[in-house]
């Protein structure tokens, strides 16, 4: 199946029972799959009038205690940012799948990682963060979307599955049997009608002096806990590496191919660190490797966004370089190899 369909299937296997979305390329297979399958599996599908409406429908479904998801691509996800800020401020779990495309503006429908800043810095107004998972295979589109629901409920926070047009559109075999129905999370805060309990209020508004700062401190403590416990990354051939490549999503797929090339075509032993969580970012793991490699090459389909986080993690321990493609262009394996040879050969 396609990556987009895998994300939708992973969501349903995670117990997603409400989906609202608006058409946009290159994620239309998600909305179509949901429209086809979700109502037959006990869920609710709504084609929303806009991205704004879709994300706010999630606010309502999530407030009612139901697992819910929306999906879109970059321009549509920009529109959702206000709603994501409200979800984070109200501590409501929800999953947002972003199959990003190239910008700025309408840009084009080619794959891009240009939303990295938006995704990892919160994206909307105010101080908040959303855990962000970056799949690089169709299998991971299913697994990470499933995982996103668990993280969202565990931390009562929106979670982003940050794909791109390439992993969304490509087709690969997928194993799904291990994505078993999850254990339900207790949601005593949910709006179900105040029967036999004091009423619940779901809100981000804190109008009493001092209350909003307290709420923000509580949120930051939660984000600190996520940073301590939820960092995920994959290291390939890093133990003996002289040079380190850092790449995620589609770029990681291509880089993985390169590091398996015969050593004579590369400048020594090249390792790959692939962040799975873009936030929280694998800072410690990168810093440890930076102690003993000659340098780091970051490969991205944007003007150089994650490279800033890599530099913050490396803290000058070794040089950090960037190979970038923009506007829907995808780096080739040869480009990466040539850049490695030029830098470290």
């Amino acid at each position, binding site marked *: 199946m396609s990556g987009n369909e895998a994300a939708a299937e992973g969501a349903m296997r995670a117990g997603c029972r409400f989906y609202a979305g608006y058409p946009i390329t290159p994620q239309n297979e998600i909305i179509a799959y949901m429209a086809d399958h979700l109502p037959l599996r006990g869920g*609710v599908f*709504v084609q929303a009038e806009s991205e*704004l409406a879709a994300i706010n429908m999630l*606010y309502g*479904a999530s407030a009612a205690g139901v697992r819910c998801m929306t999906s879109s691509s970059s321009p549509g996800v920009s529109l959702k940012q206000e709603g994501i800020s409200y979800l984070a401020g109200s501590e409501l779990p929800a999953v947002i799948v972003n199959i990003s495309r190239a910008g700025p503006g309408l840009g084009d429908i080619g794959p891009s990682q240009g939303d990295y800043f938006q995704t990892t810095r919160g994206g909307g107004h105010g101080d908040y963060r959303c855990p962000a998972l970056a799949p690089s295979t169709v299998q991971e589109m299913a697994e990470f979307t499933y995982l996103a629901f668990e993280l969202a409920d565990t931390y009562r926070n929106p979670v982003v599955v940050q794909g791109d047009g390439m992993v969304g559109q490509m087709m690969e075999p997928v194993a799904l049997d291990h994505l078993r129905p999850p254990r339900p999370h207790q949601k005593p805060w949910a709006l179900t*009608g105040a029967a036999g309990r004091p009423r619940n209020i779901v*809100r981000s508004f804190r109008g009493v002096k001092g209350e909003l700062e307290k709420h923000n401190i509580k949120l930051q403590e939660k984000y600190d806990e996520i940073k301590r416990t939820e960092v995920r990354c994959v290291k390939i051939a890093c133990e003996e590496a002289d040079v380190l490549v850092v790449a995620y999503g589609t770029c990681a797929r291509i880089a993985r191919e390169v590091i398996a090339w015969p050593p004579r075509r590369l400048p020594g032993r090249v390792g790959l660190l692939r962040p799975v969580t873009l936030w929280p970012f694998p800072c410690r793991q990168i810093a440890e490797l930076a102690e003993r490699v000659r340098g780091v090459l970051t490969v991205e389909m944007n003007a150089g966004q994650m490279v800033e986080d890599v530099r913050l993690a490396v803290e000058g321990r070794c040089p950090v370089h960037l190979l970038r493609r923009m506007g829907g262009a995808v780096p080739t394996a040869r480009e990466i190899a040539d850049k490695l040879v030029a830098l470290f050969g």
Partner: protein
Amino acid sequence: MRETRTVRCETLYARPQCLIDVPTHYCAGCGHGTVHRVLAEIIDELGIRERTIGIAPVGCAVLAYDYIDIDWSEAAHGRPPAVATGLKRVRPDRIVFTYQGDGDLASIGMAETIHAANRGENITVIFINNAVYGMTQGQMAPTTLVGQKTKTTPRGRDPEQDGYPIRVCELLSGFDRVRFLARATVTSAARVRRMKKLLKKAFRYQIERVGFSLVEVLSPCPTYWRMTPVECCEFIEETMVKSFPLGVIKDVSAGEDGDR
């Protein structure tokens, strides 16, 4: 010899059970307090407190959840119909209403209003029309009257530049899945009783799964109309009702149109 007599006392009027006994933040003469009370009476009388969920707006009624003792959700400015859609679709047996002002419902949230209405979401919308943005100090609303002076129409609303006030009930009346539309006001005891009757009907329709209903309430804003509360009531009765006629605009009860 003293005569003893048993006097039977009967409570004829009391605070509704679900109306929380706190002073509200509303200005003197504002209509929100009256509508809150009527809403609380209806929730009590229909016996739906334990299965009702309210959606509070952004605007003067942002704190509505401080006054009525039910489950409540906040919503971003203009988005209550979308939030209500998500809630009601996953909890169809609960009673879901939105409480919205004119800026929220008819300006920034017009798309959500129209589409929730067109889908025929089985929710009740309470629309407070005071022809002005109260919370942000009295700017022009989509329902501001022609010639009405506000912070952003200092020389009065000019239709050549700002268009005419939007009649929400009339606008929605053409949608097939909209079941009940009515406009009321709070300028006298009789008007309040009428408003209650209409609003109660809207809630009954939701309970009976008839579909989308909206009750608009013309509501005084003494602070930003620069009038006394009494002058506000006179203004509604003499001027505002000319642009926003009172009454039932649409009433399609269950089963009449064969669409269900």
